[in-house]
């Protein structure tokens, strides 16, 4: 299963993430993993399977169903010199720990006049697409990207799943990592990184000249599929993966829009008050005169996520929606 060997060509996003955790636990005694079912169960999504056997129950620590207590305990442990990785099953459950994340993790450094940095990593799943209905399917990472004092990551590729954790742990401040549930089974060849993964820059996943498709996380595969379809029609779409939702890489967005003169934001969150709204506003503020068309947004329908498959599919941004929006901008 190892992804560090050269014998196996293919790996999954889940395995890449697991390997990142394994490396973190191996390389630093201060690192420990804590969350609901991360140990015996192997992680609700199977990410931490086998780590308990390898590292023991002190460092792969099952917690009670107490999001506020174990996230807060992660903050306290970080203050006292540990490097905790806290797993929350889904972003919906993270709301039970929002007080700890916002009022403590994001705030202690400032309130203490710089005395108390919180070197904590919190991982959680986000997003829909598995018919889990309204309390397990939402994309609230944009809310967290609203908060000063934390960094928000959305690894969308195998390489980012494998290589973002180490720099996140090296960050002296709290880092939230959002893993889209539909990405765990994505498999492919894990390429060695060209350079150390940095947490400040967006990535061009496909260069293009006619329109910028700006997205992140679980919407990246859909945007790439849309770019393929558009290419077949002779439209060259550039796909920008934001990767870091806070702080946003303004320069990458501006540079892309300056090349293509058309922009679309694809975001699985609700349109109103979304990260897509923020990116659109920044394009309007910084690149207004570069634009040849209004900024397009493809977001989820403004509805709590339904269970029924066809309704869930209709609520989510789909490749066809992205293609249609591109036509509105380009034609």
């Amino acid at each position, binding site marked *: 299963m190892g992804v560090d060997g050269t014998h196996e060509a293919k790996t999954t996003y889940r395995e890449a993430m697991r390997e990142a955790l394994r490396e973190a636990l191996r390389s630093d005694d201060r690192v420990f993993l804590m969350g609901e079912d991360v140990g015996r169960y192997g992680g609700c999504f199977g990410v931490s399977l086998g780590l308990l056997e390898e590292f023991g129950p002190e460092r792969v620590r099952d917690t009670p169903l107490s999001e506020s207590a174990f996230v807060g305990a992660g903050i306290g442990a970080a203050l006292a010199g*540990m490097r905790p990785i806290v797993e929350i099953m889904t972003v919906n459950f993270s709301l039970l720990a929002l007080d700890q994340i916002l009022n403590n993790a994001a705030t202690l450094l400032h309130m203490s006049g710089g005395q108390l940095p919180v070197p904590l990593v919190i991982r959680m799943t986000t997003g829909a697409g598995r018919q889990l209905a309204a309390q397990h399917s939402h994309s609230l990472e944009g809310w967290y990207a609203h908060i000063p004092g934390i960094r928000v990551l959305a690894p969308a590729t195998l390489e980012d799943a494998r290589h973002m954790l180490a720099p996140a742990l090296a960050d002296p401040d709290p880092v939230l990592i959002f893993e889209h549930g539909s990405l765990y089974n994505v498999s492919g060849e894990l390429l060695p990184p060209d350079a150390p993964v940095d947490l400040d820059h967006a990535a061009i996943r496909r260069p293009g000249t006619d329109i910028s498709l700006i997205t992140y996380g679980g919407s990246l595969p859909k945007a790439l599929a849309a770019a393929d379809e558009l290419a077949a029609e002779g439209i060259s779409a550039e796909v920008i993966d934001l990767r870091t939702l806070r702080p946003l890489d303004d320069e990458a967005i501006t540079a892309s829009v300056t090349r293509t003169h058309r922009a679309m934001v694809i975001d699985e969150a609700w349109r109103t008050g979304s990260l897509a709204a923020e990116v659109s506003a920044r394009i309007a503020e910084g690149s207004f005169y570069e634009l040849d068309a209004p900024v397009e947004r493809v977001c989820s329908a403004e509805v709590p996520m339904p269970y029924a498959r066809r309704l869930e599919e209709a609520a989510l941004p789909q490749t066809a929606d992205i293609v249609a929006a591109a036509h509105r901008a380009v034609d």
Partner: protein
Amino acid sequence: MSAARSTRMRNDPAHPKSGTKTTTTKRSASTESRARQPSTGHRTDLLESMLRIRHFEERCVELYSAAKIRGFVHLYIGEEAVAVGVNEALTPEDAVVSTYREHGHALARGITADAVMAEMYGRTTGCSGGRGGSMHLFDASRRFYGGNAIVAGGLPLAAGLALADRMRGRTDVTCCFFGDGAFAEGEFHETANLAALWKLPLLLVCENNLYAMGTALERHQAQTDLAMRAASYGMVAWAVDGMDVEAVEQAAQRAVEGIRAGTGPHFLEMRTYRFRAHSMYDPDRYRDKAEIEQWKSRDPISLLTDRMRENGELGDREVARIEQRITAEIDQAVEAAEKAPEEPVEDLLHHVTSSSAEAVS
């Protein structure tokens, strides 16, 4: 573990059974108290420490009225015995987590009146560099972790500090102060469960002053025997006369010894009272004047002073000397705060992330 037995005491200022143990959790002989032997010098230290808090806060009232300091200011007057007594049981290596009513905890922990007063003034010389104010006092060098203005919000944090200390092989204790209002918050119960489950070295000190802001204990708790409820989580829990600094110190010593011996979290319900309103904004319409007066008759400072006088350990001259010293200390703190620099507005965005500014030393 056998079921806790209720020894609910009425909310009577003259606690007849202070120090009553409210759980039948077995304790080994090795964890029996080896509390500090009372001595005149030690009692004088306790008195001075309480007087420092009292005078500091009385000056805060004046400064607030003069609009020199602003924001929410929650006074600790009446509860000084708790901060001072508990702190006596802690070492400098132990950690303390506090609430928004934390001037007393900060001063008892050894943060200087200068640093606290400058923080009240919002000056760069304040213990939080002026970013925190009255509700957010911090001192990393003394392991004083605030200053949490969300009721029960400091409890999970304290569990994490305790967990980290244990994982790093230290014998330190984390002490978390909170009020009776915290019992209505899920975070208290989540933390009590987690701490007992993991046997964390955590001292939970509930300052039961009988009011959650303006709501009396009977009106915010279905079961008002707080120590009994804490014991139900499987931790040693005691109710203590929070007006008697020596009783507080002894209880805290005993609890800390038990925690260091590895018996997991301990809970102390400090039965105390705030003589002033919830905050400077509070007109205090919800309390009976007679009730306040009755509690004032057990003022922790008078209680200790009288005991020492009766024992011939304290004379008028000694009291005057201490008062004089503290008055000078606080005069100096106010003077220094008045003169201290204000942070330039250009530094506004400092301390948002570690890279956004230098940390204060």
